């Protein structure tokens, strides 16, 4: 039997759950259709950064949007708590991107200057600091660290608790969560949509496709072309440790549990989420260069997960013109943008004017010729 709701959100990862929570906050009846326990699940493979510095090179709107999410984050976290969410361990105390050697330092410095010169990118608060100042903030750095770029706006959360909190809060606000419901087809159905899944058929007035990489093949069902591709990243997680990393780094963060996550690797590997030993050795080798003293720390888990990457690395948001009421939402920064997705993007889905509001993130940008 078909079950109906105001909005169906296809995808129960961080992007889908944030949108669903935002829709439920606005009073919409929402059904989240998710895959089973083992999916590609970028949301379980990510790093937890609410990261601002360096974002938006080439697209000022993305820099603005990122900062907007960052600004909304504390209220977003508090809001979930009021609706049965859990503590997501949000900390926004600034972050560092370390440089190894002089060349790395000067390249990072040059990129800050380049972004300074782009109107609206607004990187005013990102600055270079020398090795001695870095050592004040992170005493365990090794002698090869030449400095870092620093932004007071960067922060982090526990991404697993964020996902759990979004699900709990959305459900407390009446959203229905259906797992084992891999979407097979989507079709227009009168004023709304009919979504066929492995768990049956669901009907809705509106439809949001937030299924990560799967948007590539689901969005065409509503007349949208979303050219995302997987970008493989490896993450290494250590055993619990006493606090040793007082400051957040772009490639290393110590969680409230004491485990240290190392990451920030990129690799083209199709849909293969296997582990590349050489990549692990490379990351581990760089950890030993950044922090020689962590050589004997034990890694308990590694994994690779697929980032959802657009050709230019920016989000893609669009309402279908051939099937109005159907939206495709994709980005690789599901954590950083979660607050904006819940509190700003979701209301726009209900209130209209979506494509004007998010014109900068339209997939049309990939279809215009370079000369135009």
């Amino acid at each position: 039997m078909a079950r109906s709701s105001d909005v169906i959100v296809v995808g129960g990862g961080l992007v889908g759950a944030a949108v669903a929570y935002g829709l439920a906050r606005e009073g919409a009846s929402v059904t989240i259709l998710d895959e089973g326990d083992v999916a590609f699940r970028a949301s379980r493979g990510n790093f937890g950064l609410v990261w601002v510095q360096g974002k938006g090179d080439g697209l000022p709107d993305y820099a603005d949007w990122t900062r907007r999410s960052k600004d909304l984050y504390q209220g977003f976290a508090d809001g979930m708590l009021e609706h049965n969410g859990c503590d997501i361990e949000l900390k926004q105390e600034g972050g560092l991107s370390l440089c190894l050697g002089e060349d790395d330092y000067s390249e990072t410095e040059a990129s800050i200057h380049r972004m300074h010169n782009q109107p609206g990118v607004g990187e005013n608060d990102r600055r270079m600091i020398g090795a001695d100042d870095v050592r004040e903030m992170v005493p365990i750095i090794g002698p090869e660290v030449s400095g870092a770029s620093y932004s007071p706006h960067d922060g982090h959360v526990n991404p697993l608790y964020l996902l759990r909190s979004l699900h709990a809060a959305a459900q407390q606000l009446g959203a229905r969560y259906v797992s084992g419901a891999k979407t097979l087809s989507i079709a227009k159905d009168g004023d709304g949509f009919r979504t066929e899944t492995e768990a049956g058929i669901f009907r809705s007035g509106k439809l949001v496709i937030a299924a990560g990489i799967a948007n590539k093949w689901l969005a065409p069902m509503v007349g949208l072309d979303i050219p995302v591709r997987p970008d493989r990243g490896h993450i290494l997680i250590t055993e619990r440790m006493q606090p040793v990393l007082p400051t957040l780094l772009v490639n290393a963060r110590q969680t409230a549990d004491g485990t240290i996550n190392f990451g920030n690797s990129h690799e083209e590997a199709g849909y293969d989420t296997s582990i590349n030993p050489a990549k692990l050795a490379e990351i581990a080798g760089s950890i030993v260069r950044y922090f020689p003293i962590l050589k004997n720390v034990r890694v308990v888990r590694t994994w690779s997960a697929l980032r959802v990457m657009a050709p230019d690395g920016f989000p893609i948001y669009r309402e279908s013109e051939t099937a109005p009421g159907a939206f495709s939402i994709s980005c690789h920064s599901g954590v950083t943008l979660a607050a904006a997705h819940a509190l700003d993007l979701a209301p726009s889905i209900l209130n209209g004017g979506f494509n004007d509001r998010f014109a900068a993130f339209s997939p049309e940008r990939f279809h215009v010729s370079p000369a135009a």
Partner: protein
Amino acid sequence: MTRTDLAIIGAGPAGMSAASTAREAGLSVLLIDEQPEPGGQIWRAIERNASTRPEALAFLGPDYADGAARADRFRASGANYWPSSMVWHLDCPEEGDKTLLVAWDGVTRQVQARTVLIATGAMERPVPVPGWTLPGVMTIGAAQTVLKSSGLYPEAPLVLAGSGPLLLLFAAQCHAAGIPVAAVLDTTPSGAMLRGLPYLPKALFGWRSLLKGRRLMRVLAQSGIPVYRQVEGLEALGAERVEHVRFRSGGKAVKLEATTLLLHEGVVPNPQLTRLIGCEHRWDRAQRCFHPVLSDRGETSVPGVFVAGDGGGIGGAIAAENAGRIAALEIAEDFGAVNRPSGDIEIVKARDNRRAQMAVRPLLDAMYPPPAWIGKLDGDVPVCRCEEVSARAVRGAAADGAPGPNQAKAFLRAGMGPCQGRMCGLTVTEILADAHGKEPDAIGYYRIRPPIKPVTVGELAALDGAD
């Protein structure tokens, strides 16, 4: 980088026998094992005991003493042997060789193998009774290990609790060595003989095992050790360590003093490597655990990766040896290293031997059913020992929408500690299956990630691909 025709992981009965057989067929063999000496758990410290402590062979029994000849044969086989080494990753691409990453003495050694035999055996089923994390509560296998390898035994009062052949064997070994046992708490539900009866005719093919079992029961009966039957609701009590055990037996509540409580509710395959490579597994209702799905040849659903021994389904040492032999002969035939007719005859013999051993399993499963209460757990009892996650929390995750153990792990950190789910995996699957009213097959198991045991950052960085 080391290259080999066959890489074997685990130097127990299956691994040693496969190595010896494959060497006889002329294959290059590398056997990698975590322990410093061959023998696995069943023949732990067999070489040392045979050479320096022959009296231990007497009280540990003839089956243990048999291990010495097996270790000798393996040592003489010419197999390349890496003891004290830990395989932390096994990568099986669709084409070409498998890659093993092995931590050894602070570096990672890389092995390219044409085929792989996983012979990592079994582990005792975790028994999450209240108080099981108290110091002084161990598994029977743990006590047996220190008895074999160090001649150590728990101080009185020693209480054994659980069900199954290993409980009987250990009680008999204690008795033979003059180690006092204060009580045996038999958790086997009543009617063991009745439940076993339908399986008896088939089990008679394994009459040797049956006789051994009879003998052990008789030793226990004549030992004078108090035995409490149909024990339920077992709890370990104590502040800093176990001081008492409490339970019900025959409708009566009993409390006994205990310095050590040893638990045993059967053994289950050690799942880490077969889960890591993502081969197909199936839930075995009779044994309440997952088994990798194996072909007649012992091959998993990942081509070129074989499993032999208790890691593929519990059968004991002799069955494991024969399974190791079967897999090695099959692999040798694939390589053209053995002539079909003679190899096939050997395979048939090994299969017959293995079948005789396996014949008693259905009888044992019926007589000593694995504990059904584990799936019903709730409340404060910790199911994940590392991250101290309670049964109640697992049920809470199920209520919050976690469809399976991987989402529950993300919600709770259960299975994220150093043991990487070995101690809580089955329990979490069983509780989620109960909470969702589904079969464990539909619930699944933790996705196991490398390294399958923690390795240091330095070991990861020292990837020795070039030597």
